[in-house]
């Protein structure tokens, strides 16, 4: 990948990677750091990487950085279970966000990551597996559970309203 192609990656993927990270971390500065370090790593390896593989590489590095960051800050729930106290957080401020975003926030970091890689970036189960270090069937099952959770949340909200 040439220097020009690397800069093309910045233009094409920086926003997407940032969206992916910031929605998971829900902390803009941390997300910015993760994106910057991910692009630094991409730059380090840009010579041996092809432009076609750059996006997946970037998201892989970004995902790992994010998980590392979450582990450091001990905010991760890798098991992916529905947090018991998540419903307590519901308050007036939540009306600002859409129900869908609130539903997404109910998921674990891994589930949320899979959801975003699938819906935002359009990756296949295989590709998502490569990025997150899972196999394709795990991705499929995790995503299925995630959608059911989100669906349950949305339906419940609609019933309440």
């Amino acid at each position, binding site marked *: 990948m040439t*220097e*020009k192609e*690397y*800069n093309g990656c*910045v*233009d094409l993927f*920086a*926003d997407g*990677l*940032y*969206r992916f990270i*910031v*929605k998971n971390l829900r902390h803009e500065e941390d997300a*910015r750091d993760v*994106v*910057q370090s991910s*692009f630094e790593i991409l*730059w380090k390896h840009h010579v041996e990487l092809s432009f076609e593989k750059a996006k997946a590489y970037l998201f892989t590095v970004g995902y790992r950085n994010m998980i590392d960051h979450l582990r450091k800050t001990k905010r991760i729930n890798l098991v992916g279970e529905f947090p018991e106290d998540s419903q307590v957080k519901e308050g007036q401020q939540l009306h600002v966000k859409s129900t*869908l975003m609130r*539903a*997404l926030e109910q998921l674990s970091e891994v589930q949320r990551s899979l*959801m*975003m890689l*699938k*819906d*935002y*970036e*359009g990756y*296949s*189960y295989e590709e998502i597996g490569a990025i997150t270090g899972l196999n394709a069937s795990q991705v*499929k099952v995790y*995503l*299925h559970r*995630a*959608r*059911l959770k*989100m*669906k349950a949340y*949305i*339906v419940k909200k609609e019933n309440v309203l």
Partner: protein
Amino acid sequence: MNINVNNYEEYLSCYVDGELDSAETRELMAFLEQHPSLEGALQQLESTKLDPEEKIVFPFKASLYHEADTKQPRLKRFYGIRWAAAAAVILLLAGIYFFRMRRSPVSENRPMPAYVMHKTPDAPGNVVPAPAISEKKSGPVPAHSQPAAVKPPKSLAAAAPVKPSPSNRSAGTSSVTPAPTPEPSPATIPIPELPEVKALPAVSGSVALTEASAALGEKPGRLAVRGPASEEVADQVGGRLASVTEKMAAGKKNLDQSITKGLSGLQAKTEDLMGHLEKKEIRIGRFTIAFNNE
């Protein structure tokens, strides 16, 4: 593939994920047609799909570009040099300005070559040193060896246009500044046009002030009490003026001497050359070239 009421949700999820091929999609659609009550489940699952068009802009893209990273420091360095140069010029100008502002108008006229003249070994020995600046309230001190050019200090002080200014300092300086102090520059001024150097007396500032205040009808004591600082300034100015005139005279003398010396040397050389020419030979250093015209 076998879609049934137990596993249809999984297929619905895969369908929402876009992971079913065309055959599987057809089969799922057929199943849903058979079970219209499950259509709602599909819609609910589809409502969980995130909008890929949702934009969140990363605000620090400029920090990620690597082309820009290599160019920016160069630009910064370049601008740094330019700014430094501009700052240096401004500082230099400001420095010159303040330096000039700080110097009194008289000291500005102080001829720099005079210092060199003073140091030349064959300087005339009859140069009288300038009166000490600390010499306060003393009478007029003759600054130059030419007594004819010495003017009585009284007339200078009386002629000095002292204004009844509230600032004694300005009165003190203005009493001396009108004195002409031509700058002698031996290198540029042609010999016959050298101005006649007139030695000006070193005027004690206090005396000048006393005279000035007397002329204005003020009590001399008041002025003297009010302005000890101005007295000092006047003393300094008087001293400097004397040293300037003295140095100018010394410079002129020096110049005259060197011109005379140079002329006599030239004459001797010409005579020597003429003698050689008469002998029909030219001497260059140790070599002598003889001509024979015959």
